[in-house]
């Protein structure tokens, strides 16, 4: 709504005096640092910032940010945030959630948040497991995941967070990895986007689902397994030797070889963050056949929910005075005098 005044802060200003209670080595630490490092670069004001979370390991996040924070109930952070933003659209609101919180118990709210396009940053820490409840499989766990509640392997297919987000109407979809150095750039792009910025962050649960993302997150093989998307740049990976192209016969994406850096000859697509059709294909790209698409997959803003609500509230109040007595007296009234009823006042 009103443009934020830039405030000068350092990383220290964003740390609380609370002892961080995640397991040693948890990917959440890296995300916390990335956020605390990014906030000063955004010129954000701690007193005008609110972190709102649901329930789960990730949702402890607000306790460690020296901002306003609300650790709500399981799955409901998007709904709480909606009330917060409608009551005060000027607040800079970040939602912190996880795969179980956002896609299982809170799936409904996530869908409607995205559909309405509330101006918040939505950080979904995806570790494909319920960590706080000791390791049950989650809605993003791969088929066959062994867990205390699925000792013979899970049988249901996982949800795809980014495909869900786009399907629900998201106007900003991005992916990052907890320990990845590119994460702050994703956060900055998310913050710059007006509307719900959906960020899936692959987060390593070292206790219950250790290294589950290693096949694409491991540093050693990253060059071949990660596709870093940059607006206006060709979709290249494997040190520029491979790229993503559109097969005009099947109307599907495919991996093509790039010879001597001539990506145009290979038909490699130039990433356009405003192309929704391409975004749909990017979120559907299956890892294995394709690299994991990271960075900003889609970014095409449109008016926010709170702006529309405020505008309608204002427009429908034009020319009306909030006169309570007049409201009560509205409609047909009649007066009773000491002698009984007089005629109606029509």
């Amino acid at each position: 709504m009103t443009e934020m005044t830039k405030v000068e802060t350092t990383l220290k200003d964003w740390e609380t005096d609370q002892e961080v209670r995640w397991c040693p080595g948890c990917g959440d630490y890296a995300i916390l640092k990335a956020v605390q490092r990014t906030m000063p670069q955004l010129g954000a004001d701690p007193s005008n910032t609110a972190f709102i979370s649901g329930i789960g390991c990730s949702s402890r996040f607000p306790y460690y940010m020296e901002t306003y924070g609300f650790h709500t109930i399981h799955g409901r952070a998007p709904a709480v945030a909606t009330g917060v933003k409608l009551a005060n659209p000027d607040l800079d609101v970040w939602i912190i959630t996880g795969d179980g919180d956002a896609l299982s118990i809170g799936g409904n709210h996530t869908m409607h948040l995205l559909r309405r396009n509330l101006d918040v940053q939505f950080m979904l820490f995806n570790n494909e497991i319920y960590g706080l409840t000791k390791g049950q499989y989650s809605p993003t766990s791969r088929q066959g995941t062994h867990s205390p509640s699925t000792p013979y392997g899970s049988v249901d297919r996982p949800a795809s967070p980014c495909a869900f987000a786009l399907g629900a109407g998201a106007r900003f979809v991005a992916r990052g990895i907890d320990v990845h150095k590119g994460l702050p750039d994703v956060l900055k792009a998310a913050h710059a986007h007006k509307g719900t910025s959906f960020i899936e962050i692959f987060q390593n649960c070292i206790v219950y689902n250790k290294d589950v993302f290693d096949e694409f997150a491991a540093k050693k093989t990253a060059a071949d397994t990660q596709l870093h998307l940059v607006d206006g740049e060709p979709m290249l990976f494997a040190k520029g030797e491979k790229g993503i192209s559109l097969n005009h016969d099947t109307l599907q994406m495919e991996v093509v070889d790039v010879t001597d850096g001539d990506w145009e000859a290979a038909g490699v697509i130039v990433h356009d963050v405003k192309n929704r059709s391409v975004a749909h294909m990017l979120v559907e790209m299956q890892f294995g056949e394709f690299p994991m698409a990271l960075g900003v997959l889609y970014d095409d803003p449109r008016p926010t929910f709170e702006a529309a609500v405020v505008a309608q509230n204002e427009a429908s109040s034009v020319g009306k005075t909030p006169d309570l007595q007049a409201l009560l007296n509205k409609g047909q009234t009649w007066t009773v005098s000491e002698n009984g009823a007089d005629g109606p006042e029509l």
Partner: protein
Amino acid sequence: MATAVKQGEPKNEHPSGGENVVVRFAGDSGDGMQLTGGQFTLSTALAGNDLATFPDFPAEIRAPQGTLFGVSAFQINFGSRAIETAGDQPDVLIAMNPAALKTNVQQVRPGGLVIADEGEFGKRNLDKAHYDSNPLEDGSLAKWQLLKLNISQLTLDAVKEFGLGNKEALRCKNMWTLGLSLWMFEREREPVIDWLNTKFAKLPNVAKANIAALNAGHAYGETAELSGEGLGTGHLPTHRIGAAPATPGVYRTVTGAEAISQGLVAGAQLAGLPMFFGGYPITPASAILHHLSRLKEFGVTTFQAEDEIAAITAAIGASYAGSLGITSSSGPGIALKGEAMGLAIMTELPLVIVNSQRGGPSTGLPTKTEQSDLYQAVYGRNGDAPMPVISARSPGDAFECAIEAVRIAVQYMTPVMLLTDGYIANAAEPWKIPDVSSLEPFPVKFLEKKPESGLLPYSRDEKLARPWIKPGTPDLMHRIGGIEKAVDTGHIEYGPANHQTMTEIRRDKVLGVADSIADQEIALGNSGGKLAVVGWGSTFGPIHQAVRKAIDAGKDVAHIHIRNIWPMPKNMNELLKSFDRVIVPEMNTGQLKTILRDQFLIDAMPVNKVSGQPFTITEIEAAIEEALS
């Protein structure tokens, strides 16, 4: 008048000119009976009669035509003496088809008038209502005065010149019936005509046809010299129903849903806060969402959420951000909100939750009234989760209760449950419009500066309320949440001693609300008698009438009506114990009775009704009789 307790009522049941008449309109749910009833109500109120209404409609929007379950009815009790109930037995039944006759006629007072649209009593409709023979012909209605009119045909004749299709023309039947009723009870047609012209401003032909039907019905009554005289309960004087004595002032009719909406707006203004209302469509609570959606100029933001949980959690978010968060629903929706109420209790944020009760459990009886959510209101959350509960007794009373709920919520930093029910929400009554300038403001003070001793988000004032701090305030950043809080700091704290202390603080804070409410009064009668009839909510009317009759008959009975259910007024213990016996009529299986027994160790006896219909005066009288014998 259901809004004011009157001690100085005339003692005689039927003083000269003092009478009341109960009229019930019944027809197919598509026949416009609620509209007819509503307009008759308005004309009656304008004539200076006191009145009470009881809309009784099916859950189906358009149930199959002519069926028994598709019958929609609207009852109005009006007269020249104070009216507190919609009336026990109709004196007049207007039945638009066989199904309407069948489902309603047994309730009509013997000797009462039954007006039936014989045009609708063909074989097909008789079959649908499971009549083997035509009741208008077979003598089975002998104990009532029967008036058969072909209302369908008379209506068609009246609107012929406007060239409407048959179906559209027949839609004017309700106005024909209304015209007849207005004639019978000498009511003005003008307000209805004005209303029709406004309602159908864009369809002048439809407006004209409806007005023609209204006039034709009126003229029919005049020509046929029908009269409502002598139709009132019992032995009646035969002159028109005079105006009811009422406190001087400006009046209007109001429904409970309207009054609650306006009371919430008033409460927000008195607190100096913008209002955020989160709702999800549910019968019969939706009307509040509808009303508030039109009041944006009062700083009201309404949000139709994706579900009941989002409706309350968004309201909690809005309260957190400094608005007055409000949510509303009915039983099933309130059940869904339970966890979030706990969050509001734990984070100590103000919130008003309105429950328009309906018959339960589960989906239950969506359009019928019941008082069976009292346990849910007082006890229905996980953990020791105390919450103030207040209940409205009538549409007019709901206005004051809404203000009271807001006051308690913001002064004590707590969610508050406001109970109403389907009957109060839909019923209309004349309401003496309050003087806004006489309402006492209770402006909210946010914490805006860091105290010298440092910020303690869970420090307490004399009411044990914690400070309300808006995000966005410089230097007061802090974190709240549903995990147990440390005393004063509000940090996460699992320690046993701390939990003991915080649980006690939450309990004491809510119990302390009793310091800010008035002592329990006796609605009728005196303390220390043989019998107290204790009620709450919409049973006020029948209990009050029944107790008045008992007192008039020389019995030692009093009526106590409880508005503050939790915590109860401080003198309640002493007051209840001053009576030899206590009975508790309520539309559930004995919920207030249980709370009274638990809180005061008294032998409160239940009087229960869960038929989806309000108590009749006769039923309460019988209970009084039994308790005294």
